[in-house]
């Protein structure tokens, strides 16, 4: 173990080989230890260890482990702190990148999105893997050859000056901060479920785990922790899916057999659509929506009627000497009625929308095997629906891919490999390790759907599975179940489920022992923590290295730079936790927004900087501003939450029907065009910069001997 955390290890080939074999040994033991740990807990569960103990043990053991690695890898050396000494072998850098990359959104949210949206959700799966082709072919090897510490570093050197560097810092902070808030929200969600603590406290417990690691050892600690986290998260993701596959089909390779389960899901969908009980539920929602609509026509009269009805209920209960709890509830309902006509109008509009949204077949989910909404051969409306749905699907893939290739915390990872060759191999390993999880996610979605449709739907309300009440307690917005048509049987239309709990609830839905639920939660925690670590480090480095050292005080000693970075880490982490505790509107939107920002800000200048020598300072600076500005403008004028933040009241005007989530689709080409045009009308970059471009294009020029 010592060599792995030893700062002074030499980097000649003999010691590299020893280093690698030591790593192999350490992580093999570690993986074996983790499996043994889970088995022991499983046995203890059978012997009667209570569930909340299991949750706590998982929480403490994994966070303790990450903290331990952080303490062992503590460092104040700049090269170790910023780029892990540049000696992380390709395989391990691949695993670390995998964990860095796979966030709460990938682990917790993605399969749930596919579950809820079917083919449309595959945009995330393709976008978040295909982006690595761009990383591998356009960026990683060149970034490694350039060999500095951060992405703004590259912008500052290549585009000659502090202006592009400064815009880079702003962009890096904007997209990393948006992204880290989403991770911390995920950490809070899981900690709450594992421990039963309040959400706000859960966030700060998880934050401790993030900080102790990145705070002490920077990139070095984060890298070795991320390898450990990858192993936990991939095991945790696979076990329940394989289990479900064996249970449903007898074959332990879910990725190969879920096509046949998909056919069964399609059959069940057709059955559910025709089921009279489901139709009954839908009709009740339709009636409720219609009732709310009627109230909207005459708001004052409806308010009076509501008031009278609620008052009558209270009086009746009191007269009949009803149970105290019922009387209290009725009084509360009476007190909670809207007081002004405006409030009432808002409440009725919301009720109309909410009920109308649920008055649809399959609880609003499209048939799982259906590609795009609408129909290209149908009437005008169906045609438009089809075209818009297809256009948005492709636009989202584009933004996610380009964004992947421009996220500073991912690109930074390729600075840590020993050579250009290893950087290329490392992208291969990165995508391979990411691929393992991503090509399992659609299988998980289908297998869980089959389980829900065939087992959970149709069960009786008096005998609902435990996980339903457990998750409703965490947050009713994530899962709520009500017997709408009062028949005592659970219909699909009566379940309202959020995508974020599908993966976490999978073991329980499949009837697996609680220890597996604990393991999956620990996996989700690993995914969220590892990404949060990488992001916080990116933000702190942008501020300490790029802003303070490169722009404010170039003579600052190394030790001070590292301490400033550590101090900033704590400040940024607390700020992000503060924002996450507010439960900002839409997590998936936050994450996707980060991708669009990154795509529009960084992709054009980075790629043109390497492939086009003529790109210059003014082109890059204005291009980044134009790209980011366009993306931001489109989002701020079209996305409901941002519109309310910025007080935009003009009617929403979508360009070609593209949703705000894909705003980068406009930002990227605008950024590209501005860089090209402005570069051409301003002077070419200096000879020295052109030589730098030549320099990054070849792994080793060996001048004079070629």
């Amino acid at each position, binding site marked *: 173990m010592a060599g792995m955390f030893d700062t002074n290890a030499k980097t000649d080939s003999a010691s590299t080989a020893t280093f690698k074999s030591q790593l192999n040994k350490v992580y093999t033991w570690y993986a074996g230890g983790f499996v043994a740990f889970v088995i022991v807990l499983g046995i203890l569960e059978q012997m009667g260890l209570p569930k909340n103990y299991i949750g706590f043990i998982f929480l403490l053991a994994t966070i303790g482990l990450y903290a331990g690695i952080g303490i062992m890898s503590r460092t104040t050396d700049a090269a170790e702190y910023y780029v892990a000494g540049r000696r992380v072998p390709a395989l391990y850098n691949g695993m670390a990148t995998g964990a860095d990359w796979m966030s709460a959104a990938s682990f917790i949210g993605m399969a749930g999105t596919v579950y809820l949206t079917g083919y449309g959700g595959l945009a995330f799966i*393709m976008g978040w893997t295909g982006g690595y082709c761009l990383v591998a072919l356009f960026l990683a090897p060149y970034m490694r050859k350039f060999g500095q510490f951060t992405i703004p570093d590259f912008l500052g050197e290549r585009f000659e000056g502090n202006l592009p560097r400064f815009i880079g810092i702003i962009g890096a902070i904007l997209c990393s901060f948006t992204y880290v808030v989403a991770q911390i929200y995920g950490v809070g969600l899981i900690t709450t479920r594992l421990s039963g603590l309040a959400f706000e406290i859960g966030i700060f417990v998880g934050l401790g785990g993030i900080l102790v690691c990145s705070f002490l050892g920077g990139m070095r600690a984060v890298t070795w922790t991320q390898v450990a986290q990858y192993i936990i998260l991939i095991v945790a993701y696979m076990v329940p899916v394989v289990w479900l596959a064996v249970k449903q089909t007898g074959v332990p390779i879910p990725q190969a057999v879920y096509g046949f389960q998909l056919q069964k899901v399609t059959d069940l969908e057709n059955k559910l659509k025709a089921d009279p009980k489901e139709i009954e539920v839908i009709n009740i929602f339709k009636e409720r929506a219609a009732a709310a609509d009627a109230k909207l026509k005459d708001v004052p009269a409806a308010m009076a009627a509501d008031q009278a009805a609620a008052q009558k209920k209270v009086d009746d209960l009191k007269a009949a000497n009803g149970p105290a709890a019922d009387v209290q509830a009725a009084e509360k309902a009476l007190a909670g009625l809207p007081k002004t006509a405006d409030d009432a109008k808002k409440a009725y509009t919301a009720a109309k929308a909410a009920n109308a949204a649920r008055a649809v077949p399959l609880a609003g989910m499209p048939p799982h095997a259906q590609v795009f909404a609408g129909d290209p051969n149908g009437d005008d409306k169906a045609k438009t629906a089809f075209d818009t749905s297809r256009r948005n699907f492709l636009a989202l893939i584009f933004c996610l891919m380009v964004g992947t290739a421009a996220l500073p915390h991912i690109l930074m990872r390729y600075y840590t490999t020993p050579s250009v060759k290893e950087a290329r191999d490392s992208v291969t390993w990165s995508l391979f390790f990411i691929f393992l999880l991503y090509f399992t996610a659609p299988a998980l979605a289908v297998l869980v759907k089959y389980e829900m449709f065939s087992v959970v739907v149709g069960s009786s309300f008096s005998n609902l599975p435990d996980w339903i009440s457990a998750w409703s307690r965490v947050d009713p917005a994530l899962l709520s179940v009500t017997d709408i048509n009062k028949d005592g049987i659970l219909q699909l239309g009566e379940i309202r489920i959020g995508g974020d709990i599908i993966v976490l609830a999978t073991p329980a839905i499949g009837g697996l022992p609680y220890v597996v639920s604990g393991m999956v939660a620990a996996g989700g925690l690993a995914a969220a923590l590892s990404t949060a670590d990488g992001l916080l480090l990116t933000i702190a480095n942008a501020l300490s290295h790029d802003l303070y050292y490169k722009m404010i005080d170039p003579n600052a000693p190394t030790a001070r730079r590292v301490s400033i970075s550590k101090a900033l880490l704590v400040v940024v982490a607390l700020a992000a936790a503060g924002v996450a505790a507010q439960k900002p509107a839409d997590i998936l939107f936050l994450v996707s927004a980060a991708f669009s920002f990154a795509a529009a800000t960084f992709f054009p200048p980075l790629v043109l900087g390497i492939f086009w020598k003529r790109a210059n300072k003014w082109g890059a600076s204005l291009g980044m501003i134009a790209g980011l500005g366009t993306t931001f403008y489109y989002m701020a004028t079209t996305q409901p939450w941002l519109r309310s933040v910025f007080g935009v009241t003009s009617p929403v005007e979508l360009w070609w029907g593209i949703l705000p989530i894909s705003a980068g689709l406009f930002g990227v080409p605008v950024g590209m065009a501005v860089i090209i045009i402005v570069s051409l009308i301003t002077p070419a970059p200096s000879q020295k910069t052109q030589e730098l471009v030549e320099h990054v294009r070849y792994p080793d020029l060996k*001048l004079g001997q070629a």
Partner: protein
Amino acid sequence: MQVSERHRQYWNKNLRITAILMAIWFVVTFVVGYYARDLSFTFFGWPFSVWMGGQGALIVYCVIIWYYARYMNKLDIEHNVHEED
């Protein structure tokens, strides 16, 4: 700094393989995506486009990156721009 003819060849070959692989990437992602509704024939149980979106495209992406790394690592040696270890 003078770059030799051999270096220029190296860079051109790099650009060529990059262009070819990006063309494959584009077809797998956007062309298949565009015609997804029409490509719904059954493929080992899946509608083909659903399989492509969830798994086929991912396999192609992995192969693209693996092939590029292999090709470039060889090209480095052929053109004597590889790193000494």
